[in-house]
C-alpha cells in the first residue's frame, strides 16, 4: 500500500510538472503566476514530506536516533514496508533537497542584500526611475521594498516617447506586483524538487506576460506594447548574441504574439485541472503520512501503557486505535 500511495504521489508531481505550465498558458498571467507559485510550493512541501516519511522508519532505527525515541528499533525494522535501499535513497534525496534549498536561499538573500545596498546609495531617494549612462540598451526592475526602475540611456534613446511609456509601465508593473518574490518562491520550490523547474520557468514567462498586459492596459495600445517588446529584444541581438541573460525574460516571440491577440480571459477549467493534481498530491502525501504513523505506532514501546507522553499528538490517536492490536497486519 505504501508503494501504491508513493507511486500516486510521484505521478501527481510529474503530472504537475508536465501539465501545470501548459494549463498556465491558458490563464490570464496574474492568475497563472499565482496558480503556478502556489502549486509549486505545495508540491515542493509535499514531496519533501513524502520522501522524508519514507526514510523516517529507517532513520529511526539508527542506534543514535533509536535511543531518543519511544520506539523499538527491531520492531521498526520488521514492520517497515520500505526496503532499506529505497530508504537510503530517500534519505539522500531529502538531504540533497534541503542542501539545494539552503544554497539557493542563501545565494538569493545575499543577492537581495547587495541590490538593496546599491539602492541605498542611489542619489535621489524618492524617484522611481534611475537612469544609467550607458550605450548598452538595458532596463530592469529592482524588487520592492526598494522598488526602482533602472534604464540605460542607450535604451531610452533607442525608443520613441510612446515606447518609453510602455517600457516604464512594464517595469513599474514588475515592482507593483512583487514579481521578483513570485519568481523567488517558485525557484526555491524548484530547488527542492527538480521536477518543478518547468513551473519556475513558466512563472518567469507569466510575470513578463503580466507586466506586458499591465503596460498594454496603461498605455491603451496592445500593438504598441508588442512592438516595443519586440524592438527592445531585437536591439540586443545583433551586437551581443551571447549575453549571459538567456534564461530570463520569458519567451519573447510568445509574448509578442499574445499581445497581438485579444486580452486573455478568465477561465475556470485550467484552475480546476491544477487543483485536482494538487489534491491528488496532498491526499497521497496524507496517505504516506498515516502509513508511516502506523509503522511507528506498531513499533512503539509505550503502546500498552496509557499516560506516557508520546512524541506527537497524531501518535496519541493511533495508539488509541491500535491499542491491543499490536500484531494485527494490514
Amino acid at each position: 500500500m505504501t508503494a501504491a500511495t508513493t507511486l500516486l504521489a510521484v505521478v501527481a508531481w510529474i503530472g504537475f510538472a508536465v501539465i501545470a505550465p501548459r494549463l498556465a498558458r491558458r490563464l490570464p498571467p496574474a492568475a497563472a503566476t499565482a496558480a503556478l507559485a502556489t502549486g509549486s510550493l505545495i508540491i515542493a512541501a509535499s514531496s519533501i514530506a513524502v520522501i522524508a516519511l519514507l526514510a523516517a522508519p529507517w532513520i529511526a532505527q539508527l542506534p543514535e536516533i533509536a535511543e531518543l525515541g519511544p520506539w523499538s528499533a527491531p520492531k521498526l525494522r520488521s514492520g517497515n514496508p520500505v526496503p532499506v535501499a529505497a530508504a537510503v535513497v530517500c534519505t539522500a534525496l531529502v538531504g540533497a533537497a534541503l542542501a539545494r534549498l539552503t544554497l539557493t536561499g542563501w545565494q538569493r538573500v545575499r543577492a537581495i542584500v547587495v541590490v538593496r545596498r546599491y539602492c541605498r546609495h542611489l542619489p535621489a531617494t524618492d524617484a522611481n526611475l534611475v537612469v544609467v549612462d550607458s550605450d548598452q540598451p538595458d532596463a530592469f526592475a529592482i524588487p520592492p521594498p526598494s522598488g526602482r526602475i533602472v534604464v540605460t540611456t542607450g535604451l531610452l534613446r533607442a525608443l520613441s516617447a510612446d515606447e518609453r511609456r510602455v517600457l516604464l509601465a512594464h517595469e513599474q508593473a514588475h515592482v507593483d506586483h512583487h514579481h521578483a518574490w513570485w519568481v523567488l518562491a517558485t525557484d526555491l520550490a524548484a530547488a527542492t524538487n527538480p521536477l518543478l523547474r518547468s513551473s519556475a520557468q513558466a512563472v518567469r514567462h507569466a510575470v513578463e506576460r503580466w507586466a506586458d498586459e499591465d503596460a498594454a492596459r496603461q498605455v491603451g495600445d496592445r500593438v504598441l506594447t508588442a512592438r516595443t517588446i519586440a524592438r527592445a529584444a531585437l536591439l540586443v541581438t545583433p551586437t551581443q548574441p551571447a549575453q549571459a541573460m538567456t534564461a530570463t525574460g520569458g519567451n519573447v516571440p510568445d509574448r509578442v504574439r499574445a499581445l497581438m491577440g485579444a486580452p486573455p480571459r478568465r477561465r475556470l477549467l485550467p484552475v480546476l485541472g491544477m487543483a485536482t493534481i494538487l489534491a491528488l498530491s496532498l491526499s497521497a502525501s496524507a496517505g504516506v503520512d498515516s502509513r508511516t504513523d502506523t509503522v511507528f505506532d506498531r513499533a512503539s514501546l509505550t503502546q500498552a501503557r496509557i499516560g506516557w507522553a508520546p512524541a506527537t499528538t497524531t501518535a496519541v490517536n493511533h495508539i488509541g486505535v491500535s491499542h491491543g492490536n499490536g500484531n494485527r497486519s494490514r
Partner: protein
Amino acid sequence: MIKRPAHGRRAAGALEGEVLGALWAADTPLTPAQLQTTLGTGLAYNTIHTILSRLQDKGMVVRIREGGRSAYRPAKDAAQDAADRMRTVLEGGRDRAEILQRFVTSLSPDDEQALRAALGEDGPEVR
C-alpha cells in the same frame, strides 16, 4: 499643483519617468514646450513645469537659461555614478540577475526569426 488621476503617487512617478526619459533621449536641452510636443500625451504645460522642478530638486535634471527661456537637460553626473554602481551590481553573477526583472533579453536565432515572423506583414514594422 498637478491634477493627479486616481492612482496618485504612482501616476506622478510615471510622469517623472516619461519626462526624464525624453530629456535623456534628446540631443539638446528641451524647454517645457518642446517636451510637451515630444511626449504628445496631452499633458498640460503646467504639469510638465511642475515635474521638471521636482526632478530638478532631486538633482536629476539641470536647468539652463537660454535667452530668457528655461531649458532642461539630464544631470549626467548622477547617471554616471549610477552606471558605475550598476556595473558592480550586475557583475555579481546569476543570482543577482535572477532577482531583477530585465526588460531587454537576448534572443536565440530561432526566437529572433520567430519574432520577426510574429511581427509579420499585418503586424507592426520593426524600424
